[in-house]
């Protein structure tokens, strides 16, 4: 299918060096739509939805914010929220932008951890995009399920 100018701009936005140093696709050779379709299948298989995942991540971020940078505990989870200087646009050109807030959630029982930004939560909720394999901020749905939905 032919790309529209907007698709091209989105593709540029996802590349390293446009909105973030390493971009959003990592070493994934698939195109954005293929990445989204594959993650959609995984999310379906887990019995979740993008909205449910985004809601849970938001809930954990809210919990973590109480620590003002220090870890907050909820059951087996240790949640740390850090704010960094600046804001970032959504690469999908929907005019949404976010403060550079990063949430790290660690399962103290298994030792597994996952991190996400406020932008990640938006991209999951509105675009079903979890970032490409190998991307520094990829939010793997399976890992989210294992850690955040216990």
């Amino acid at each position, binding site marked *: 299918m032919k790309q529209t100018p907007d698709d091209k701009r989105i593709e540029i936005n996802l*590349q*390293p*060096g446009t909105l*973030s*140093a*390493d*971009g959003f696709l990592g070493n994934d050779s698939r195109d954005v739509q293929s990445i989204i379709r594959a993650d959609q299948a995984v999310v379906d298989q887990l019995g979740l939805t993008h909205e449910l995942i985004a809601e849970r991540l938001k809930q954990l971020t809210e919990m973590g*914010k109480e*620590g*003002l*940078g*220090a*870890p907050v505990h909820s059951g087996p989870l240790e949640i740390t*929220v*850090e*704010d*960094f*200087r*600046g*804001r*970032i*646009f959504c690469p999908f050109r929907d*005019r949404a*932008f976010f*403060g*550079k807030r*990063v949430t790290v959630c660690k399962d103290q029982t298994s030792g597994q951890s996952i991190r996400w930004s406020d932008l990640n939560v938006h991209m999951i909720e509105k675009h079903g995009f979890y970032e490409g394999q190998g991307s*520094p*901020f990829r939010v793997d749905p399976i890992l989210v399920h294992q850690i955040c939905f216990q």
Partner: protein
Amino acid sequence: MAFLTTVISLSSISLLLSVLIILAEIRLNNYGDCTLDINDNDRVLTVKGGASLLATLSEQGIFIPSACGGKATCGLCKVRVIEGAGPLLPTEEPYLSEQERKEGYRLSCQVKVKQNLKLFIPEDLFNIRAYQTKITQIDQLTHDIKGLRLSLIEPESIRFKAGQYVQLYTRPYGNVKEKVFRAYSMASVPSDSKAIELIVRRVPEGICTTFVHEELKVGDTVQVSGPFGDFYLRGNANNLIFIAGGSGLAPIRSLILDIIEKDLPYQMTFFFGAVTRKDLYYLDYFEDLSNKHSRFHFVPALSSPAAEDSWSGETGLITDVVARHLDTDSDYEAYLCGSPGMINACLNVLNAKGITEDRIFYDKF
């Protein structure tokens, strides 16, 4: 033969259409020379149309504050445009109040110069200049914070108010093909006018901070522009409270050093919050300052000290520490710099202590 004729005809039509599209693009995107009438004929500039107003003014040596590099995410580059800006864009709407819209304020990064414009720019912005600088010192202050000292090459000195910021320009590197700029507060004292010091915390995946942390070396030349900002001393109270977290220490350091150097008669307390000892820096520096100057008190605090920190200072969230130290009847003015979460939480504490909004000044990340 008929097939060949059809192919040639179609190819000719395609070629003709392509040429027409290219010519139309050249024609439509060529806005020619445009006039910028600034402050009622005070300055009239002839510029090449086609770029954003922010970039066009910058080319003319007029630097409008911007922290995001022209991406419509900081809302700082507001300029009052009376004529020629075209309709308000959706990207500008979140940053402009109803009153500002009525008065013609626009985000200069979103306004494209396509025709003659009439605009107003505050006089003090004409003092902002671009500086060529040389990196003379880089210190690793914590695991993710670096301190930079930049000696000014051209112009050789800068005048600024303690608490203000500059914009640091990167050069293209790695996958980053374009020059970008970001805002950083000056940590140095204004009297040290031949150099500036910046404190830069690494942002995960940040384009500019990755440049600073991985690319920048002593001896490199970099461009900055400034000074910008209205985070500076008002001094309408006897007791000044300073609260900072992380790289938010930068403007606070400049303010405190300036007050001490000028021997201004304020009592000052600086609360510096971090999570563990590894996140604190300039600890000895401020403790030394506090020992030498009886009117300055330094209160570093850790919210979650690690066992190996052997920390004997204040512990707890910075909000709790501030609440423990402040009276409710003192004459305070407060200056805060740090994350939105920290600032919002501190505002509640300061309000509860009776410090009114007009006596609280902050620089939110």
